[in-house]
C-alpha cells in the first residue's frame, strides 16, 4: 500500500498544458477554451478598467441620457453600448462593474471560503463534540435564509462593500465547510496521516501540512463553482436594494436601475444581464471541467 502524500497532484497549469501524457489517465472533457477566454476577458476588463473604459463610470452627462448602442438609430460612436438614465456610458460602467463584481467575489470567497475551509478541516479532523457542534452550526446556517440575512445586515450596517462581503460570506461558508469536512473525514483514514501521527506530529501540524494541501484541490473547485453564486447573490441583493450603493457601478445595480426601462431603453438592463449570464456560465463550465479534472469525487456539487 503506497504511503504517498498525494498533494503533489496535478497543478492547474499542468492540467492545461500536460507535459507528458500519463498512461491510463481517465478521459475527461476537453479544455473549455471559450469559457476561459470569456473569463480572461472579464478579468482583464476588471484589472485594466481605467485603461479600457472610454468614459468615467460615474460622471454624468445628463444631456446624453438613454442613448441607444452605436448600431441602433440615434446611437453615438462616443458611447458604443449606449448610455443610461444619467448619460453614463454603459460600456464604461460594464467594465468597472466587472471590477466591483470580481472584488466582491474575491473577498467573499476568501472570507467565506476561508472560514468554511477552517471549520471543515477542524470539524473533520478533530471530530467528536467539536465536529457535532460545528456541523450543527452548519445546519443552522443552511436553515437560515441567507438572502434575508444579507438584507438584515444591509439595513443594519448600511449598504456597502463590507456589508455585502460579510453577507455573502455567511452564505458561503457552510457549504464549503460541509464538503471540506467530508474530504477530511476520508483523508483522516489515509496512511500518510497515520504515519504522521506515528511520527509524533501535533494535530495542528498535521492539519496544516498534511490535510490542508490535500483539500486545496477541492477548495479550488468549490471556489470556482461558487464565483457564480457570489455574482448572482450580489446582483440579487442590488435588486432588493441591499447591494453596493450607487453610483458605484455593479452589474446587479445596473440591471436594477434599468429594469423599469426595458421598453424604451432595453440596453441599460439587458447588457449587464447578458454580462452576468456569460460570466456565470463561463465560470460554471470552467468549474465543472476543473472539478472533473481535479476531484471527480465532487461531481455531485
Amino acid at each position, binding site marked *: 500500500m503506497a504511503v504517498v502524500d498525494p498533494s503533489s497532484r496535478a497543478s492547474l497549469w499542468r492540467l492545461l498544458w500536460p507535459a507528458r501524457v500519463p498512461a491510463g489517465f481517465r478521459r475527461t472533457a476537453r479544455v473549455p477554451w471559450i469559457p476561459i477566454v470569456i473569463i480572461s476577458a472579464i478579468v482583464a476588463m476588471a484589472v485594466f478598467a481605467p485603461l479600457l473604459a472610454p468614459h468615467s463610470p460615474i460622471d454624468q452627462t445628463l444631456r446624453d441620457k438613454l442613448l441607444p448602442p452605436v448600431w441602433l438609430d440615434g446611437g453615438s460612436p462616443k458611447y458604443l453600448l449606449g448610455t443610461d438614465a444619467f448619460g453614463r456610458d454603459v460600456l464604461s460602467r460594464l467594465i468597472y462593474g466587472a471590477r466591483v463584481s470580481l472584488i466582491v467575489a474575491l473577498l467573499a470567497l476568501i472570507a467565506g471560503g476561508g472560514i468554511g475551509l477552517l471549520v471543515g478541516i477542524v470539524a473533520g479532523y478533530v471530530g467528536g463534540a467539536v465536529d457535532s457542534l460545528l456541523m450543527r452550526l452548519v445546519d443552522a446556517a443552511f436553515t437560515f435564509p*441567507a438572502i434575508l440575512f444579507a438584507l438584515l445586515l444591509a439595513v443594519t450596517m448600511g449598504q456597502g462593500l463590507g456589508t455585502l462581503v460579510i453577507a455573502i460570506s455567511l452564505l458561503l461558508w457552510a457549504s464549503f465547510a460541509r464538503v471540506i469536512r467530508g474530504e477530511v473525514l476520508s483523508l483522516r483514514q489515509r496512511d500518510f496521516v497515520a504515519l504522521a501521527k506515528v511520527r509524533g506530529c501535533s494535530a495542528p501540524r498535521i492539519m496544516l501540512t498534511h490535510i490542508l494541501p490535500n483539500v486545496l484541490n477541492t477548495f479550488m473547485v468549490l471556489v470556482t463553482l461558487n464565483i457564480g453564486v457570489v455574482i448572482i447573490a450580489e*446582483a*440579487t441583493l442590488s435588486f432588493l436594494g441591499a447591494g453596493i450603493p450607487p453610483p458605484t457601478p455593479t452589474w446587479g445595480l445596473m440591471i436594477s436601475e434599468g429594469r423599469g426601462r426595458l421598453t424604451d431603453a432595453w440596453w441599460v438592463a439587458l447588457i449587464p444581464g447578458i454580462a*452576468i449570464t456569460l460570466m456565470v456560465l463561463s465560470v460554471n463550465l470552467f468549474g465543472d471541467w476543473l472539478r472533473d479534472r481535479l476531484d471527480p469525487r465532487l461531481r*455531485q456539487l
Partner: protein
Amino acid sequence: MKRFIARRLMQGAVLICMVATIVFFLGRLTGNPVDLMLPEDATAEDRAALTKTLGLDGSLGDQFVIFVGNALHGDLGRSIRMKQPAVEAFFDRLPNTLVLIPWALLLGMILGIPLGVVAALNRGGLLDRAAGTVAVLGVAVPSFWLGVLLIFVFSVELGWLPSGRMGGPEHFILPVVTLGTFLVAGFMRITRSAMLEVMESEFVKLARIKGLSEGVVIWKHCLRNALIPVLTLWGVFVGNLITGAIVTETVFAWPGIGRLTYEAVIYRDFPLLQAVIILKSILILSINLVVDILYAYVDPRIRLA
C-alpha cells in the same frame, strides 16, 4: 427509525432555538420600526408614544425574556405593521407559496432529471455539452432579471400571459418558470453525476452480463440508484425555493411568505420578521425530515439499518 426521527427532532429543536436567538438580536439591531410607521416629520413626542404602545421601550434583555416566554406558548408576537398575530400572518400567506413550490420542483425535475440522464449517456458528447450548457444557463441567469424579461416578453409584448398576481392556471406559468429554472440545472447536474457514477458501477455491469436490455439497465437499475442523491437534495432545493420565493414573489406580486419576509425587513416589523424566519426554519427542517424518511424508503440500506 423511531430513534432516528426522535434524534432529528431534538436536533431540529436546538437549531430553531439558535435561529430564534440570532434573529431576535439581529432584528433589534436594524433600527426602530417606529420610524417607518410614522411620517418623516413626526415629532419626538409622537415617536416616544408609539414606541411605548408597541412595547419596544423596555431593555433588550427584558424584551428577550418576554419574547422567549411568549414563544414557548406558541405566541411569536403581533405584526407591528399588520397588527395581526405574526403566526397568523405567516399561515395566511403560506398556502400561496406552497402552491407555487411543488410546480417549480416538478418543473425542475421534469426537465432536469431526463436531461441529466441524457447527458450522462452521452458523456462528453455534443448532447452532454448542450444539456450542460442549457442547465448552467438556468443558474447563470439572475432570477429577478429572468422574471422581468419574462413579463416583458410574454405578458407585455406577446400578451399571452398575465404579468403578475395569483389567479387561474395561467398566472402560475411565469412565476413557476422563474422560480424553477435554477432547479433544472441542479437536478440535471446531480442526476448526471449520479448516473455517471452508477453507470460505472459493477452492478450495472452485472445487469448487462445478465443480458438485460439497455432500457432496463438505464431506467431501472441506474436511475433508481441515481435518484437517491437527487432525493437528498430535495430538502436543500425546497429550502432554496422558499428563499428564492422572496425575489419571485416580489416581481410577480405574489402574496406568499417570500414577500411577507421581504416586507417584514423593509418595514422593520420585528415580531413578524422573527416569526417568519423561525417558522421558515421549522418548515425547512420539517421538509428535510420528511425527505430523510422518504430517503429511507428508497434506499433499503438506510431503511433496514
